[in-house]
């Protein structure tokens, strides 16, 4: 069992791409007002984090990173199903998914 060959592209490049995507996602999550778009942005953040995990796993030659990505993807599936169901219920109740108009949780 021998480790994969050295990386042709510098790990830093992958890390930079991952970080960039993460913060693009964060920008979406912070600045968008449509709940679905926010959710999408969060999915992007999650995937960016996955990329970072994979990169580190590759750097260390350790497969645990991939296992964790596997778990992240599965949890994302669960989260997406619940989240979207919530949005559907929310939309039925309030006829909007604009988070600025959903602000009952205050004094």
């Amino acid at each position, binding site marked *: 069992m021998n480790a994969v060959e050295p990386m042709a592209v510098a790990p830093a490049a992958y890390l930079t791409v991952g970080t960039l995507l993460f913060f693009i996602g964060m920008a979406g999550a912070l600045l968008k007002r449509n709940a679905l778009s926010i959710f999408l942005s969060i999915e992007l953040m999650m995937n960016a984090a996955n990329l970072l995990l994979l990169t580190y796993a590759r750097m260390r030659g350790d497969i645990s990173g991939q296992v964790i990505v596997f778990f992240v993807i599965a949890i994302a599936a669960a989260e997406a199903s619940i989240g979207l169901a919530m949005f559907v219920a929310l939309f039925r109740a309030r006829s909007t998914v604009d988070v600025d108009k959903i*602000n009952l949780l205050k004094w």
Partner: protein
Amino acid sequence: MNYPIWLIPALPLLGFLLNGLASLLYGAAQAQKRGEEWRKAHPDEGHGHDHGSHEAAHGAHDSHDAHGHDHGHHDTGPMLPWALRLFHGVVGVGTVGLATVLSFGILVPYAKSVMSNVEGARPIVETLYHWIQVGGLSIDIAFRIDALSALMLSFVTFVGTLIHLYSVGYMQAEAGYGRFFAYLNLFMFSMLMLVLANNLPMLFIGWEGVGLCSYLLIGYYYDKDFAAAAGKKAFVTNRVGDFGMVLGIFGILALFGTTDFSFVDMARQQQMASGTPLGVYAVCALLFLGACGKSAQVPLYVWLPDAMAGPTPVSALIHAATMVTAGVYLVARCSAVFLLAPDALTLVAWVGAGTAILAASIGLAQNDIKKVLAYSTVSQLGYMFLACGVGAFAIGMFHVFTHAFFKACLFLGSGSVIHALHHEQDMRAMGGLAKKTPATHLTMLVSALAIAGIVPFAGFFSKDQILGSAFAGGHYILFAVGLVTAGMTAFYMFRLYRMTFSGTYRGTPEQESHIHESPLTMTVPLWILGAGSVLTGFLGLPEVFGKNLMVEFLSPSVGKMHAHEVSHATEYLLMAVSLAVAGAGIFLAFKWYTGQDAKFTPGAAPEDIIASPAAHAFFEKTGTLGKVVANKWNVDEGIEALVLSPFRKIGTFLWRGFDALFIDGLVNASAFMVELTGDLVRFFTTGNVRNYALTFVLGVLGFTLYIWMR
């Protein structure tokens, strides 16, 4: 050899469970039945009361009263069905009786083996399991039979069984019959735990258990205010003692590193793990405080006379024969420790002597038959502590032993009298019962002679040896106090005897016609106990008459102060003196309380009716002092003024000043601060998710900046 010692306490526990369960189930069934009857009688509510049904209900109730020539006085409900009563009686007496048989099965061979080889006697210890194990400390559930607990076990089970048997007759008309036997069995369980315990925590379980049962049984007539109050008083007063007891246990643990009774041997060999003479003294004082609470010594004796509010068998069993001697047992058990601190022993002796004479003096002027016996008990307990205090622990235990018989007999006899007179307890309304209740009369006379210390009854031997030990130890003042107390004892006992049995009956003729001797279940225990009052003394004959079996038997278990030998001549002299004093007391009682041709008229001055002119002259001379004595030396009032009232004031201050102002103020202030903070912070709670997210991200930014800068 494997003894089933654990069965001895387990049997009464089983009895308690069975009786309690049956009682509860029956009570629930009755309640349901009553509810159904009520619904039947009130088919449509709102139609007012149906007089007919009410009367029917009353009629049913009355029929019991008419039917029973018994204790309608205390009746709190209808009598139980006979089958249930039979069940309660059989279970109650049976479990205790079995335990008795079992314990004698163990005791007799053990006593034989001890007597054959006193020096090599080893206690039987049966360990069931480890109860608490912390670090080096291991507290086991273990039972121990040695000479001391064997002695206790013998009369606790024996007298206990007799009193259970007596109760079958005495209590039969009570509604709470099952409850009574349940409590009584629970008491037997606790007492046996106390006696058989192999370590102080286990002893403490029994200690608290008997306290609880005492409370429950004093308050047996819980619908009577005075009974409930008396139970409460007993409980609270005992708490004061228990506080000392617990601290004493911790002290023993600190001194010897164990609570197992092996510390007695350590103390005997002076192998303390740690501790100073002062520490030993403190531990002894604390343990003695516990003993004072349980055994009703000055100043914690006040609960015992009030405890007479309970049924008479309870008074006999708990407040005369067994539980109250637990304090003496504790002191005797820890005798080796006490011997390390002679000052503590002196304290014990003086408290005992003080209690003896104080209680005896109060007993002189009581008119309630049970109160007289109660003060007598306190006084006799004082004797026992006096014995322990002068270092004669074995003699003290001997007195515990003999006292159990004659005092139980006296109480049961008084119960029989009360039974005969339909719950009349005032001796001024008695008189002339000797012919009406011959068995009671005879047994009570025997036990009165025993407690007065007339040869050859049991009390003579034990009491005389106590006085002898005091004299031999050089405690002449204590000796004198004891002697005076002995005289007083003889006087008030025969005052009781005269007022109750001699002369003519002072009640109405109608009442007189109802007077009857008690049933067999009550008289048989009386006879047996009466016989015990005569015979038990011979187990502890003074040295001058030969070997003192009791002292020899107990010698492996209890310590003994270095004996001061007195010559035989002195001993004979001392006996003669104490006999003379007792005789004088009896003579005076006979002379002063004629009880002839008097009728009880309510409102008459107490002693007018029954006392002779000579007595009246004496009372007039003593005047104020007599009144104070009759009012129990105003001790209750003194405690109220000196202890309770200040405490109440401190409590009120703590409540109003400290708790309400300071503590509540702090709490309210913190609540106010929280409210204020909340008012400020809630402006940030916009309900807008994006704001929250932004805040969160800004927080992360700050944290990252911190990491960056670091």
